[in-house]
């Protein structure tokens, strides 16, 4: 199929990403369970090994590197559960990905209100 123009700053979670990210997303899906979250916190490396994360996935988990997790096939709906373990909200994630301070990121959101209506 003809691929449409990429959207800047946006990764579409399609088959290629889903295949690449399966192990990572499966681990994050397991974090729905409080026991699993505790097990991860107790032994991050052992927990990642159990889900057979790829090297780039494990490295991005270690570095809490959100863009790295996306590049390694992570899906934000599952990654949000990992962020929950770290006590991060979606604005923390937004700041981390855009390279802004959280304060600036929130200010940008508020400014969205000023968009001119055609």
């Amino acid at each position, binding site marked *: 199929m003809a691929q*449409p123009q990429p959207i800047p700053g946006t990764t579409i979670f399609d088959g290629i990403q889903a295949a690449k990210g399966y192990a990572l997303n499966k681990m994050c*899906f397991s974090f729905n369970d409080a026991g699993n979250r505790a097990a991860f916190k107790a032994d991050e490396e052992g927990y990642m090994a159990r889900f057979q994360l790829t090297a780039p996935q494990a490295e991005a988990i270690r570095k809490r590197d959100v863009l790295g997790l996306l590049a390694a096939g992570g899906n934000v709906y*599952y990654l949000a559960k990992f962020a929950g373990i770290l006590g991060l909200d979606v604005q923390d994630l937004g700041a981390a990905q855009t390279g802004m301070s959280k304060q600036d990121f929130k200010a940008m959101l508020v400014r969205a209100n000023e968009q001119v*209506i055609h």
Partner: protein
Amino acid sequence: MARIVGGLTTSHVPAIGGAIAKGLQGEPYWKPFFDGFLPVREWLADVKPDVAVVFYNDHGLNFFLDKMPTFAVGAAPEYRNADEGWGIPTLPPFTGQVDLSWHVIEHLIAREFDITTCQEMLVDHAFTLPLKLFWPEACPVTVVPVCINTVQFPLPSARRCYALGQAVGEAIASWNSDKKVVVIGTGGLSHQLDGERAGFINKPFDLKFMDSLVHDPEWATQFSIHELVEKTGTQGVELLMWLATRGAVPGAVRKVHTNYHIPISNTAAGMMALESLA
């Protein structure tokens, strides 16, 4: 036959659950959001629907990539909420309207919708919080959940979701019951959580979309999923739930109330209540 009383649509965000649990509805950050529901609660108290058919998208609580349905219809006697990973308080179970579930399932398969049927189903914040927003006390309606995939691409097209809604509406209208049914759609409006474009919000599009649902409900079906992601963000595509809801409420509608507020979390939070005039 059952009667469709109208359609309700709202954004959903996990943080709403925290705000309700902590009683923050009157705080400056939350008040413009929560106040939007007050006129709708009055309308609901007046109309008193018996059943809610809820279009929502699962966020990785009930479905994983091992078995990811495009469309899933619940047929369970009870739907439980559960821990989604952030420890927001779980809400009490919801009672299923099992006979309507199967009537909808029969109709959808007859109309060539290749749904997945769920006799057991955990429902996440996208299902539970809107019901809590519309009915802050105990939930008075029985429910039929209809889940649309927004996690893994390819997603069903806007046109397909609208057609799904229409078919669900036909099923409700042909249900042999004297009950009143309200259709609910939860998700959107424009927002993007992931990538360098995180924080993207498109107010002009959102307002145009909300307006179209009143008078020109098929307007958004002109867009491909890729165009919708471009215009509304990776999670903005959750507006598919709104489109399916409007598809299920056929014909002319009266706007009971609408609200639009930026931001709640990273989201342009919209709300609409449309009364069926058919």
